[in-house]
């Protein structure tokens, strides 16, 4: 299910004509002002943190890791053995990324990542999770009905494919390395990275080759 004008948390917004900020907006402002007034928080530091996750740390990082693994078999080996060190080679590390395990999709095995207890997610390579990943419907069903969940994402897997669900119950973070689509042998690493979606690295999508130009 997709939503447009209505946000996932269930209410419509009109950003242009929002007369009164919603309650959490006011409360957040009150909290920030209080912490700043007490000299405990520097608003410029908050700006930097917001900017880092809005503009620097996101799924493009993970896509670069996957593309490198596709073109460089030695890198892929290192990634599958020690994910944390392998992402650090490309300059990605940090919050929630240290203990990273990369799991590889093959024609026989499809991996799917969830956190049933909260919302653990490999921030260093994927940034902050989308709302659906943090939502009760995904967290409740990914473990009991992974095939149904994947069907909802438009992905029907053959019965003979083994689905491995990874419930992130500790400080280990999981990154799915999707299958490289056939017909991409001539693509550059950059072009390959552009094909890799966030959802394919969570395990709710596959990666497809670009449609041939008419």
């Amino acid at each position, binding site marked *: 299910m*997709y939503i447009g004008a209505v946000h996932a948390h269930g209410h419509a917004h009109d950003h242009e004509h929002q007369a009164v900020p919603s309650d959490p907006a006011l409360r957040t402002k009150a909290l920030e002002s209080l912490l700043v007034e007490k000299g405990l928080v520097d608003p410029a*530091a908050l*700006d930097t943190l917001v900017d880092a996750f809005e503009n620097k740390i996101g799924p493009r990082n993970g896509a670069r890791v996957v593309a490198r693994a596709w073109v460089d078999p030695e890198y892929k080996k290192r990634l599958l053995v020690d994910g944390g060190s392998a992402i650090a080679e490309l300059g990605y590390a940090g919050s929630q990324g240290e203990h990273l395990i990369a799991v590889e999709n093959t024609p026989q095995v499809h991996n799917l990542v969830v956190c049933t207890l909260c919302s653990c997610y490999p921030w260093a390579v994927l940034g902050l999770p989308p709302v659906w990943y943090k939502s009760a419907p995904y967290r409740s069903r990914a473990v009991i009905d992974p095939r149904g969940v994947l069907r909802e994402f438009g992905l029907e897997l053959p019965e003979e494919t083994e689905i491995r669900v990874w419930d992130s119950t500790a400080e280990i973070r999981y990154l799915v390395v999707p299958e490289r689509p056939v017909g991409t042998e001539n693509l550059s690493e950059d072009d390959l990275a552009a094909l890799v979606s966030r959802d394919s690295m969570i395990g709710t999508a596959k990666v497809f080759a670009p449609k041939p130009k008419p």
Partner: protein
Amino acid sequence: MNGIHDLGGMHGMGPIVREENEPVFHEPWEGRVYAITRAIGAFGKWNLDASRHAIEMLPPADYLRMSYYEKWLARNIGLLIRHGIITREEIETGKAATEAAPALRRLSAAEAAAHANRRDRYSRPDAAAVARFVVGDRVRARNMNPEGHTRLPRYARGKQGVISRHHGIFVFPDTNAHFQGEQPQHLYSVRFAARELWGDEASPRDCVHLDLWDPYLDHA
């Protein structure tokens, strides 16, 4: 605790609602809540496990009703009050009381960029903990129902699985969340067959892997 946060296997939560081209933060306040969480985390007054537990302690109806960042905001205010950094009156009035603020580490703008990428370490390779299991061992997750924080979901309790990987020694959330020390324990990836967890309706091929600490497990 057997809380509402332990969602694995529940029914009736509705369809998975996706949003195309979803922004990182839907509204500016969400980004501020995220950043405040990181900044006040740098005070070092609580830990990740305590912080998770504080969200689990929200009343169940609120937990389901509130958006993700509303939960973070409520959790942050609760932790700041509980640790004596702000008072309830201050947050209600929006005015700092006259007494001096506690001396805490204030994250500078210069530090913040590196902080966004900070490596949090939870492995304790030098801790003296005994590993009771090796890869390949058949284990049963304990039927335990602690009132406090735990990372053993209800759906795996009492179920049999196989140790598939040994991660090393890690901070133990069940004690760390309650400021009873890190008490590091061996951590394993345990593979449970989908049919063991959910019965014959589940696919005979599928499985769920959970990362479980040594004290959650017994030999099967």
